[in-house]
């Protein structure tokens, strides 16, 4: 990576660059979107074309394997591979037809029907006996799992056809089709990445993709425990159903159908999330650099001792140090007591806004940023001290020769170099701070509460901690999902804009 910094050339200031980046981004986004669909279209087109071609000129085995999986492999005497394909097909058919049921909710084709969320509410008969009720969450979940299994099956189905087609080509060109042992062998060599990535992909599918889709779909449903408990018919308590975009519309209308002003709190919380992410990132970043410069000052001894002390705070689990801080600044904790003894204050200050109702929100916000510095600075310090070590010393020699003062050297050489190298980190830490849950949740629990009820966001609530309050504390899953989706859209656009603009993205490929 070349790092010759020609400090003389007049650099456009940060806002112009960001503005140009923003416009550039949407232009790229537009034509990226267009050619994405163009590619998709052509992809489908030639998919079906060669599907037909394979069917046409494939051997009988390949033709058969379109219907009975593994037939192609049996045809080419790859018995084990054929058996595996066949077993998979049989299992898939059994799964779809027999609809195995768990906790009274079926998988298989019934699960696809249940996706319409029209279950029976259950209740009691006249003899006081319980009628089993359906559970919409399981309907939604099992429906998604069934869809995922169908997609996996289609992939295996295509692999089965491709492998028998390849076996045809091998036979045509005189080579013996690969035996099972060879297949297994080249899994370790040419197709090594498949072996290595499959466990992660399956784990990602089951534990990340399906749950994320589950969350997104909740935003279009009436899944809200407070309202379900408030339902007029007594037994509609377990069921929720689709209601399209009403949740989104209500949020922006400033009042949801339930009549409390969740919408009115969205933009203030969004604003504070940005202010928090900006200050948290910058204070930790520059604090870390200054601390690193201080520790790595030439001629200073015991560098390792000081560095270990600061690593101590990273080593302590966050919830311990944060709860310690919360109790230190507690209404009856040492700090307040000392101030009161000294007579500076008459009643305890709600430093973190959770002492009594009506605490000062600005103090809580400032304190949260300061305590976050206490947590974040050591990490950045560690990172920058690593980078400071490998700044080429000839730059400093050249500067010293023409007599630049140490401070000028700092701004002309050290800072630009460190910025350039840590740009990707800056972006990821900005996004990380938008989603930083622990600091706010453990310190202020959302800070001084705002007029309008417990599950409306408090003063220091971020989108993420508000999401926690909405979903886990109060069961408002649909409104929470809406907030979750909007948080995603915002963070995604920022990350993509910043990532594409940063030099490291452009050089990412060259570095390979």
């Amino acid at each position, binding site marked *: 990576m070349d790092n010759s910094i020609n400090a003389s050339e007049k650099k456009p200031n940060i806002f112009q660059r960001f503005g140009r980046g923003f416009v550039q981004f949407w232009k790229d986004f537009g034509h990226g979107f267009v050619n994405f669909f163009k590619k998709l279209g052509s992809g489908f087109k030639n998919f079906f074309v060669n599907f037909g071609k394979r069917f046409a000129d494939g051997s009988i085995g390949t033709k058969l394997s379109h219907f009975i999986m593994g037939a192609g492999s049996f045809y080419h005497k790859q018995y084990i591979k054929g058996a595996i394909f066949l077993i998979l097909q049989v299992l898939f058919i059994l799964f779809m037809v027999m609809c195995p049921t768990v906790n009274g909710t079926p998988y298989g084709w019934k699960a696809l029907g249940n996706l319409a969320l029209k279950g029976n509410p259950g209740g009691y008969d006249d003899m006081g006996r319980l009628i089993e009720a359906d559970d919409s969450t399981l309907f939604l979940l099992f429906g998604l799992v069934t869809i995922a299994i169908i997609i996996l099956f289609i992939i295996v189905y295509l692999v089965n056809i491709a492998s028998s087609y390849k076996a045809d080509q091998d036979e045509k060109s005189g080579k013996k089709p690969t035996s099972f042992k060879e297949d297994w062998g080249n899994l370790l*060599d040419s197709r090594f990445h498949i072996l290595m990535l499959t466990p992660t992909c399956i784990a990602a599918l089951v534990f990340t993709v399906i749950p994320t889709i589950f969350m997104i779909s909740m935003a279009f449903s009436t899944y809200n425990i407070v309202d379900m408990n408030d339902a007029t018919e007594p037994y509609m308590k377990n069921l929720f159903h689709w209601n399209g975009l009403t949740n989104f519309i209500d949020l922006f209308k400033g009042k949801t159908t339930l009549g409390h002003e969740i919408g009115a709190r969205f933009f203030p919380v969004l604003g504070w999330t940005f202010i928090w992410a900006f200050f948290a990132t910058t204070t930790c970043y520059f604090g870390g650099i200054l601390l690193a410069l201080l520790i790595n000052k030439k001629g200073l001894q015991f560098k390792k001792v000081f560095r270990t002390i600061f690593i101590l705070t990273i080593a302590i689990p966050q919830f311990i140090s944060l709860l310690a801080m919360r109790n230190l600044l507690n209404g009856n904790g040492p700090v307040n007591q000392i101030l009161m003894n000294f007579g500076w204050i008459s009643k305890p200050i709600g430093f973190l806004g959770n002492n009594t109702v009506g605490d000062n929100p600005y103090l809580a916000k400032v304190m949260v940023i300061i305590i976050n510095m206490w947590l974040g600075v050591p990490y950045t310090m560690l990172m920058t001290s690593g980078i400071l070590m490998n700044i080429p010393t000839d730059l400093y020699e050249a500067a010293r020769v023409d007599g630049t003062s140490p401070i000028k050297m700092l701004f002309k050489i050290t800072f630009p170099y460190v910025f350039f190298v840590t740009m990707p980190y800056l972006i990821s830490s900005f996004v990380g701070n938008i989603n930083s849950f622990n600091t706010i949740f453990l310190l202020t629990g959302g800070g001084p509460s705002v007029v309008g009820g417990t599950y409306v966001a408090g003063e220091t609530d971020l989108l993420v901690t508000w999401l926690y309050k909405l979903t886990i504390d109060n069961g408002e899953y649909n409104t929470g999902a809406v907030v*979750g989706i909007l948080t995603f859209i915002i963070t995604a656009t920022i990350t993509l804009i910043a990532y594409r603009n940063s030099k490291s993205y452009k050089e990412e490929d060259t570095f390979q």
Partner: protein
Amino acid sequence: MKQKKVLLTIRSRAILSRTLSYLGLVTLSLIWIIPIFWIVLSAFRTEVNSDGQLIGIVVSNYFPKKFGVQNFINLFQGQFYGVKGVFPRWILNTLIVAVVDCLISTFLVLSVAYCMSKLKFKMRKPFMNLTMILGLFPGFMSMIAIYFLLKSIGLAGNSADNAWLNIVGLILAYSAGAGMGFQVAKGFFDVLPSSLVESAKLDGCSNFKIFWKIILPLSKPIIIYTALMSFTGPWMDFIFAKVIIGTGAPECWTVSVGLYSLLFGAQSDVNFFTQFAAGCVCVGIPIVGLFMFLQKYYVEGVTAGAVKG
């Protein structure tokens, strides 16, 4: 004479700036240590109120008047959430989760990172972008969905008699997500010269042999860094464990969930504060020890990771 004076002023100015830096560094170190020191002090605080009962709440004097280990004894034998002597169970649970998760996650992270960094295949860029995008979603909703998923296969929300199933569920939930966090390890593998891979390929080793015999022995720092991160993960994590096993039987909680629920749970009691501090010390010391012991690798991992971001 003037020349000597100039020399002296430069030297004395250097000494002055160094004195100030030392003063600044010592003060900053103390500021960073005071809250941690306060927790350790509270852990050993055994002041007694007029009735002879141990004061457990947040006391206002920074220095305790009486020291002792009574809090640790109460913590280990105490009955919390209806279960006697539950704290050692919490530590055992977290240890099991940490060890198993460390093994699985390290393998997953290293395998994915190696593929992303050294192997060429067409799905590489889309996979990288997909992981980045999935990482942007706030985690809660998927945590709730994971809880429902695990519950439907009986690995979450179990009552006390098969509480260990909840632990297996938590291990699955932790290690499943690990594979997506390959960026730091990829940063490290990128630095390894790809000429190594080419030369090994020339004399006929399979990719697997290259990975196992050549790359892994060379990447001891990143293995230790990843193992350290995934081992300390379950000790440090709080919110993920609270959602997945927080509703199950107290016997199957991890230490972080247990300690949090001492102060803020349904049966929390303000008198538990000093026992909470004792618990923090029990959790904190092994992890800090581990960090200090593996500090060299941790620093290397952080710097390598940051460069690639």
